[in-house]
């Protein structure tokens, strides 16, 4: 137990120490030392995580120290919950994180703020591990806001561009709206259970016997958590920050805005699954939110020309799939997709980064084309990624997406099924478009492209292998596989197991056939449409809706931001200036006027004073008479 505690502490603290080191001494160390140091630190953290992964049976709690004492019998601890759910995600965070660190040493070469970049990146890993490992909601919240901070710092990393700084601010503020929901949820749960420790809350739920009042607050908590999750995982209505977040360096997009941070919402809901099971309606909301987001984002992705924007909307869409699965009671499927998505989406982003790097920061796909010859490794790695996300068997994306499609199609909700299948088709189409526009046809840009350095291509190849084989982690038993992940997570989350029967086998085969057909159709259509691309996109008034992202940014700006600014101005000039100060100044001038009037009585004429004395005397007499 003692060494487990040490491992856990090291795992989290090593990146934190690294973060301070690179910030403080990055410039003095030079790029080489920072590169080697940052990667070594992360690999060390990964190894600690691996040690815990194999050292923990079932689950373990590691308590460090008391953080905030709320009352005599309730307090918040810095403590970790090491169980299959947290350890799996922890492995992905440090594992994929290490790969992306390696990649970034190549990508960021020559940047004047090299040390600062790795400092933020290491700080992100620290926060993400706090989020994943914490066993109290408040500790989780520390990581939750911490990753938000790192995301903010990294989006506005090249802060000389005003636009980048604004994008970072937008990400933070939109996330704060979600965090507000999270906070309210913590308060509500504390109201019901008198604790903020996740295992304690869950075991209290298992005991049952909640009063109507407690049920009410647990429902409020669910809504708060859904708001929080939708902020972090960029689901409707809080998805607007993620596309803008692409202003950050590409390794950041891969690590934070694709593989790890944005999946925190899914993790949160899986973590607290029993709470959501208590309030069935909230799961329904999650499912529909996910389905809608998946379809919406896919439809926007088709019309984006910035290669990173396509991938950003694709991420939103894939996260929608995960929410859909969780909402329909299949957290393992969601988790599985989370893992494979971490592989193939990190691969796609890093591949895109390799292209952008090769083209000297060109991101417009209209200015690319024919790059497969200049960048063969990037091309082949990207091809694996594209096939995986398009759902071509037997790649990882196919297996995990198929599990989600299976859940949807057997849930009896037609609308959601239509959304999910339509999204699958559209995904294949926009990914095909991206692939063809980038690597085929004639080169339409200006710069000569070069293949990226080994540090980058090595990572691409590794991720390509993971994307190809990731499906084996949970290969369905129906097809003679062994559902490792399902088995592993079964002690933490509840998911109905698929019965093994010939009927189910037929159904699954039909489904797999249909979904791979959709994938192939999407890719084929894109190939036909964009193979000889001449610069002309689909043109029709209705497509403007998709190009402009359904005008949601504009809508929020008019409906909320401008109004708030207006209110701020009214409160300042109107309430503070006109009403309060106006009233007080009026009081002041009134006093002055009264004084001036009264001063007029002091004329210096003795006769007048005598009259006043007389009047006073008479009044006194009158007063004395009435009192008597």
């Amino acid at each position, binding site marked *: 137990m003692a060494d487990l505690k040490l491992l856990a502490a090291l795992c989290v603290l090593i990146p934190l120490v690294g973060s301070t080191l690179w*910030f403080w001494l990055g410039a003095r160390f030079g790029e080489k030392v920072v590169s080697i140091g940052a990667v070594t630190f992360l690999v060390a953290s990964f190894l600690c995580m691996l040690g815990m992964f194999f050292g923990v049976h079932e689950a373990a709690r590691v308590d460090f120290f*008391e*953080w*905030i*004492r*709320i*009352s*005599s019998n309730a307090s918040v601890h810095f403590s970790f919950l090491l169980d299959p759910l947290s350890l799996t995600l922890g492995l992905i965070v440090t594992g994929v994180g290490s790969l992306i660190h390696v990649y970034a040493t190549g990508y960021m070469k020559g940047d004047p703020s090299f040390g600062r970049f790795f400092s933020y990146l290491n700080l992100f890993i620290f926060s993400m591990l706090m989020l994943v490992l914490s066993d109290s909601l*408040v500790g989780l*919240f*520390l990581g939750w*806001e*911490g990753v938000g*901070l790192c995301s*903010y710092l990294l989006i*506005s990393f090249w*802060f*000389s*561009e*005003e636009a*980048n*700084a*604004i994008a970072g*601010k937008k990400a*933070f*503020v939109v996330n*704060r*709206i979600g*965090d*507000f929901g999270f*906070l*309210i949820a*913590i*308060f*509500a749960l*504390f*109201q019901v259970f008198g604790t903020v420790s996740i295992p304690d809350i869950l075991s209290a739920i298992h005991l049952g016997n909640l009063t109507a009042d407690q049920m009410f607050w647990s429902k409020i908590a669910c809504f708060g958590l859904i708001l929080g999750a939708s902020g972090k995982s960029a689901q409707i209505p809080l998805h607007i920050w993620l596309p803008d977040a692409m202003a950050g360096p590409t390794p950041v997009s891969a690590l934070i805005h694709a593989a790890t941070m944005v999946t925190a919402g899914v993790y949160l809901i899986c973590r607290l699954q029993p709470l959501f099971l208590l309030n069935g309606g909230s799961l329904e909301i999650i499912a529909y939110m996910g389905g809608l987001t998946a379809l919406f984002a896919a439809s926007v992705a088709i019309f984006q020309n910035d290669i990173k924007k396509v991938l950003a909307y694709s991420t939103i869409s894939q996260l929608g799939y995960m929410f859909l699965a969780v909402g329909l009671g299949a957290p393992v499927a969601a988790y599985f997709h989370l893992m494979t998505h971490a592989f193939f989406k990190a691969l796609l982003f890093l591949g895109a980064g390799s292209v952008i790097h090769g083209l000297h920061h060109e991101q417009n796909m209209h200015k690319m084309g024919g790059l497969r010859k200049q960048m063969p490794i990037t091309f082949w790695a990207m091809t694996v990624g594209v096939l995986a996300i398009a759902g071509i068997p037997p790649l990882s994306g196919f297996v995990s997406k198929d599990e989600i499609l299976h859940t949807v199609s057997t849930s009896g909700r037609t609308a959601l099924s239509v959304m999910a299948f339509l999204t699958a088709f559209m995904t294949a189409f926009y990914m095909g478009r991206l692939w063809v526009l980038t690597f085929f046809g004639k080169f339409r840009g200006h710069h000569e492209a070069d293949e990226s350095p080994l540090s980058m291509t090595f990572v691409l190849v590794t991720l390509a292998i993971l994307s190809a084989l990731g499906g084996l982690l949970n290969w369905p038993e129906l097809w003679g596989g062994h559902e490792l992940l399902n088995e592993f997570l079964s002690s933490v989350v509840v998911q109905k197991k698929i019965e093994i029967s010939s009927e189910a086998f037929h159904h699954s085969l039909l489904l797999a056939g249909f979904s791979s057909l959709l994938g192939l159709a999407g890719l084929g259509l894109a190939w036909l449409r964009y193979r000889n691309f001449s610069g002309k996109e689909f043109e029709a008034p209705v497509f403007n809706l998709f190009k402009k992202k359904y005008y949601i940014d504009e809508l929020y700006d008019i409906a909320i931001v401008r109004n*708030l*600014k207006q*209110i*701020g*101005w009214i*409160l*300042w000039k109107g*309430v*503070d200036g006109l*009403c*309060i*100060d106006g009233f*007080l100044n009026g009081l*002041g001038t009134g006093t002055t006027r009264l004084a001036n009037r009264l001063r007029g009585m002091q004329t210096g004429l003795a006769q007048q004073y005598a009259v006043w004395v007389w009047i006073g005397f008479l009044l006194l007499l009158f007063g004395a008479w009435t009192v008597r």
Partner: protein
Amino acid sequence: MLNENYLLVLFLFPFFSTLIVALSRHRAAAWVSVAMAFAFFVLTLIGFQVHELRYSATWFGNLKYGLYLDSYSYFLILLSAFLTLISLFYSVRVIKEKVAAYHALFHALQATVVGSLLCDDLVFFYIFWEAMLIPMYFIIGIWGGPRRKYATLKFFLFTFAGSLLMLIGLITTYVIYFQQTGTWSASFQTLRDYFHMNPMNFEIQKWIFLSFVLSFAIKIPLFPFHTWLPDAHVEAPTAGSVILAGVLLKMGTYGLMRFAIPLFHESAEYFAGALCFLSVVGIILGALVAWRQTDIKKLIAYSSVSHLGFITLGIFMMTEAGWNGAYLQMLNHGLSTGALFLLVGFLYDQTHTRDIQAYGGLAKSLPWFALVTVIIALSSIALPGTNGFVGEFLILLGSFQSKVASNGWVILAGVGVILGAVYMLHLVQKLLYGKSHSEKLKDFGWREWVFYVPLVILVFAIGIFPEWILGPVREKTTAMFNLFSTFAAR
């Protein structure tokens, strides 16, 4: 162990240093003053393990006076000593005119603050409370900006009007005590114990409570009595702003927790809804108005209105966790807002403008300034891991369990958490990011690090290990609430 003479030394020391500084030569005055402030800070630190200390003596006749120190007063004295020390140290380089007078006034201010914090006696409390105005009046009036006359008049009239009402309330309390017991006493302990056993007529109690609250509300400042604050801050010299925001505003919230509510907690519960409403309006108004400011100091001043709204919410909701959070947040706000004013002062001394539009891209030319600014901004928006979070979290969590007012107020206050990020990140973005057009500025030198290092350490030390403050404070709060509940049970 420390005995009660420690209290007397603590009480008299700032008077003594005022005298020394006032009498020292022009050249040496600044450093003498810093040395005295440092000595006082060390003296305060010595009392760290003291939980409760009482000193009483007879003045003349049977008129008694007493000093009383507990964790509620202790940490505020520590805060005052710390902020006075660093703002005087900061002033050494900035203030070149009438140096001795300037420094002596700050020590005099410290003397009145410490006096009112240590007093067990309501009359003495009132005297020091009033006296606090005078040094501040001169600090703004002599070393202030161009509109200092207007600002000082507004500041003085607002707070003075409030104090007069409190005086009426005080006198009424005495008279009632005298009518019922036949003896005079101004000791807070005596009065509180007596009125706990023999509750006052509720109709009268209500009015006395309101007279106290009004006076404290102006000082805090609670909406709608806050409009003097932005003007005073804008005109005050940097060190004046630090002490005003860091220490003087806290005297209002301290007054609530120490006097108004313990004496009249029935009335406090009666008015809780209305007072929480005003707090929440303050939170949201402060945040939205701060967002629209172009004068950096005004922005910070309005952010104080918002933050103090959180503190009063925590107090008026009448829960133990809320009070602990509110008390901690008083210290946090003193540290973070004090630091923000110092940071603005650092820029102002070099550029002589407080217009937010005049800056940009400072992260490039002033990387260390940028780092400290971001850390302090994060503490101000209560990011977990910084001190601000612990206070805000306890306030909101505690208030949510409140029985005296609806927890809808907490949800509304939560909106203030979002808006806090909006105006603070707006400030950070405008100052630090974007195109750089202020290349020639100098970054921190050793003089700055001397006080920013402890400030930054405190941000994290309180954020991660808050128990060294929360522990003693909680003891006091629990004792207080036990008293309330025995009263309610009776």
